[in-house]
């Protein structure tokens, strides 16, 4: 898909001589599509930058987007799509920004209708397609890295282990529990048990939207591991619908204590440890 030295020379010349006309038309097409979500000045800057990089690349003779000579052009394209991905533009919008050059160029060439021009246009069009695909790929890569970053942040912030009482720790689980998160939760809980020497742990699943067999499996594993270390686990925060799902799925919690609310679980543990809880008249100073 490379352009020969002749073709790139002719096109480089064309782009340089008609620079103003091409970039203006190019900018117009993109602006029409983005409908004012990018400022005019910013758009003009982007288009001119891309134009300059393209002319530079064409000036070096043979053009192949994957070759060494086109490094700068690739960098400009990658930069452009990265910026658009972060600003929330769609992949189509980003790629069309490159494809718009075709139309702009076609209008410039319409005046001269020889067979040679047509061949040039087809060759150049192939290069633009390649550039468009490259933009697309950079766009997707940026999005993917964004998603990966967010997943990691989620993993970090969603698994606190809190101490409720002397010898009682609790893990309030929030969000969907997949294997990776279950692993983090398990490790953190067990480590906290060792660090604090707490013989009781409460796993609160109020914030877990749905419990399927896999989530139950993860919770059971955590409980069994805690038992192996000599700590007892209580599962709390089971909402009515979840209780129904658990029964419907035939999930067995065996002899693991389950409680409806965290308060119930704490009361249960306190009773086991022999702490007396009783109501008393509220006093003004305490």
């Amino acid at each position, binding site marked *: 898909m490379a352009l020969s030295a002749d073709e790139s020379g002719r096109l480089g010349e064309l782009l340089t001589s008609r620079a103003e006309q091409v970039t203006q038309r190019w900018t117009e097409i993109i602006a029409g599509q983005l409908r004012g979500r990018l400022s005019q000045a910013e758009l003009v800057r982007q288009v001119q930058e891309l134009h300059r990089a393209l002319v530079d690349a064409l000036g070096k003779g043979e053009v192949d987007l994957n070759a060494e000579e086109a490094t700068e052009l690739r960098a400009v394209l990658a930069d452009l799509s990265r910026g658009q991905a972060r600003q929330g533009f769609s992949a189509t919008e980003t790629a069309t920004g490159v494809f718009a050059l075709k139309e702009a160029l076609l209008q410039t060439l319409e005046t001269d209708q020889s067979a040679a021009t047509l061949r040039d246009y087809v060759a150049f069009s192939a290069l633009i397609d390649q550039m468009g695909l490259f933009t697309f790929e950079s766009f997707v890569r940026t999005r993917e890295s964004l998603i990966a970053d967010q997943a990691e942040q989620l993993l970090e912030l969603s698994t606190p282990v809190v101490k409720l009482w002397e010898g009682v720790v609790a893990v309030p689980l929030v969000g969907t529990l997949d294997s990776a998160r279950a692993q983090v939760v398990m*490790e953190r809980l067990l480590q906290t048990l060792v660090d604090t020497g707490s*013989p009781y742990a409460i796993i609160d699943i109020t914030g877990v939207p749905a419990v399927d067999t896999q989530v139950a499996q993860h919770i059971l594993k955590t409980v069994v591991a805690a038992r*192996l270390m000599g700590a007892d686990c209580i599962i709390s925060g089971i909402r009515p619908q979840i209780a129904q799902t658990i029964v419907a799925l035939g999930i067995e919690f065996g002899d693991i204590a389950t409680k409806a609310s965290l308060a119930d679980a704490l009361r249960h543990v306190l009773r086991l440890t022999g702490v007396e809880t009783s109501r008393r008249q509220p006093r003004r100073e305490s």
Partner: protein
Amino acid sequence: MERVPILKIGDILLVSIQVDMSDETAVALQEDLAERIVATGCHGVIIDITALDIVDSFVGRMLSTIASISRVLDAETVVVGMRPAVAITLVELGLSLNGIRTALNVERGMELIAIDRADDDHHEEWDDGPVAGATASP
């Protein structure tokens, strides 16, 4: 061959496993422990595995065997100090150390045995008198 030392603390025998267990070491430990339980009349055995990075089915079976032997000799066995990584591995492997009681650390293990003895003495009130085990743990 390395031998695992057995320490007597009050009414409890403490075994701290610090070396990789081989067949011979395990058998020697079982023999030594059985003899010490009979000789000292202790009613509790604490096996500390804090130093073990790996607990495989072999070590698991050894712990089960020791627990069974001790139970026959009227001593309660508690395994203490299992590391989180070890516990996770055991769960992933599906090994469940049947019949073994566990505690987080030696202190908790001693409490557990003391509570058990207190319960037992309560049941055997007519034989032993009510207060014998309650002060067993130092």
